[in-house]
């Protein structure tokens, strides 16, 4: 390869690196901003702790006369709940800040920068979520150990699978939150959409595993994104379904990540023209 070609090649590589770097820096900035105030975790930490404690008592009562419910033992069920709720608490909530930016018109300032608005928002959302996860994971681990003892043993490979599942779960959560927030381009008051989304997410896979739903509801549930948001990481952590089963669940999540990203891009492309800004 000639010198000129090598230089062109290395320039192209640098440009590609710089294009990706902006999203990495956005994520790390969001992580640092989120951790700037220890007090900002207080609300979610208290609510999460309360939920875990109450449900650990409920499950203790449910398991008082049995050792197994649909394949889950008492310890597995409590750890399932800890991980499923962790996902719910750490990744949800971005809707409110995004919807506020959309309604106030502040989003207009964000979209006029040289980046993909969807990916940039995603990077920031995931950066904040990492900070939430670290705090709640620590709290959940302490509460789990105190209420039911250590979780089921997890091999390094399985731990990696759980980690991947958490990232994919967070991605679906964030992208769907963003798509819902972007309905502000058309609808003035869109909190009702989020309320329905949040309640369905809670019922389908967060409060109880999918296996505990009626058979017909399970079939419907698998056609929705909700199992990919809390159920999959919680299931992989508390009751590893075998490598093949885990692979299927991760593929299911990945498909929903792709769908959610596509949905966001379509909603954004359609909504961009609707953008109006207060003032003038």
């Amino acid at each position: 390869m000639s010198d000129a070609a090598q230089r062109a090649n290395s320039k192209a590589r640098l440009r590609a690196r710089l294009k990706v770097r902006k999203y990495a820096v956005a994520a790390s900035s969001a992580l640092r901003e989120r951790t700037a105030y220890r007090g900002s975790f207080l609300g979610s930490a208290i609510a999460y702790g309360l939920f875990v404690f109450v449900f650990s008592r409920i499950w203790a009562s449910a398991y008082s006369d049995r050792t197994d419910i649909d394949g889950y033992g008492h310890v597995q069920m409590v750890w399932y709940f800890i991980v499923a709720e962790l996902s719910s608490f750490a990744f949800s909530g971005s809707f409110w800040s995004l919807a506020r930016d959309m309604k106030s018109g502040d989003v207009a300032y964000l979209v006029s920068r040289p980046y993909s608005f969807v990916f940039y928002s995603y990077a920031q959302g995931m950066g904040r979520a990492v900070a939430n996860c670290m705090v709640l994971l620590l709290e959940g681990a302490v509460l789990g150990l105190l209420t039911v003892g250590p979780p089921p043993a997890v091999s390094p490979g399985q731990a990696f699978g759980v980690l991947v599942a958490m990232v994919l779960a967070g991605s679906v959560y964030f992208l769907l939150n963003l798509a819902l927030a972007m309905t502000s381009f058309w609808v003035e008051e869109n909190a009702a959409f989020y309320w329905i989304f949040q309640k369905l997410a809670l019922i389908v896979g967060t409060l109880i595993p999918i296996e505990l739903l009626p058979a017909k509801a399970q079939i419907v549930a698998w056609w929705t994104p909700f199992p990919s948001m809390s159920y999959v990481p919680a299931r992989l952590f508390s009751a590893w379904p075998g490598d093949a089963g885990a692979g299927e669940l991760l593929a299911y999540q990945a498909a929903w990540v792709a769908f959610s990203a596509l949905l966001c891009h379509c909603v954004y492309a359609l909504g961009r023209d609707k953008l109006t800004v207060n003032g003038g």
Partner: protein
Amino acid sequence: MNQAAPADRDERVARNRASDTSNGGGVSIFDCPAHVKHAHRGKRGSEMSAISVHNLSKSFRAKVRAEGLGASLKALARPSYRVIDAVKDVSFEVEAGEVVAFLGPNGAGKSTTIKMLTGILRPSSGAVSVLGLDPSKQRSELARQIGAVFGQRSQLWYHLPPSDSFRLLGAVYEIEPKVLERRKGELIERFDIGPYMDVPVRKLSLGERIRCEIAASLLHEPRMLFLDEPTIGLDLVVRREVRALLAEIARCDGTTVFITSHDVGDIERICKRAIIINHGQVVVDESMKVLRHRSLSRKYIGVKYASSVNLEFGDIKPVKSTDTAASYVVDTNEHRLEEVLRALVGRGELEDLTVEDEGLEDIIARIYCTQRVRA
């Protein structure tokens, strides 16, 4: 006057580029830093229009609702809307290197226009070209070439120090790390923000924050800077410092500056041309020199007598008076100044007499009011 004639524009640009101090010496507060002189002078070479706006309009649809429960229920079933013409048929050109004030009362359409110029809003009709690009279609390309400071909206992260926001903005504009470090160093030195770079933005004073905001907006070396109320809320000293910095950017970098402000001091110190917009339309587009000449036909005369005298004569009435003193506003197109002064001197034993031109703030306010009456 909706659009300046090309000959006027050429003359204006030539005047702007000359290094004289014809606008009251405002732009010659500092010498250009040595590195800036060498690095950016070349940008002034371009003769193309930096901004070209033709028949630009923007309408919003706003929901209207009458009073009362019945009207609210009716609005639920069949909402009604009113079309608001925020900007109507606006045309103007800005040459590369010009420093232009874009003025108007609240709700005149300034911010809407600036948002269309920066690609934030899509025009309802008309054509816009900024640095040869269509802002609504080539937003991303344009974003790399312009900087924007919106006084009421920060681009710095509230809980993080400015250095973190600079790092993020550098990444967003895909500036190579080495180049970013050099550029950051230049801006820190120029804006004297070194001591604040490691302090969370929430702990900075408004003046310190605005300095960091402007520096951040220049990180990617934009060819054009849009400023929307950059000195809003600042105290006198900080306002003066910010104006000096903006004047320096315009003068030394050759950056085209487009500024909206309600602060006449900003306009006097920084700008060489003013476009005044009201009710969504351009009502004045002329150089600051010409705008100031409007004041020559209006004189503010103050008199103080040793004893009480009759302060009214002919159709000239004082705008403010006591028994022994009065202030007059005299239109020299209607009354000869010499005759008015002679009449005032002859009315009694004079202790003091002052004659002043109309201030720029009054001129602009008069333009706003005149247009309001016409509308």
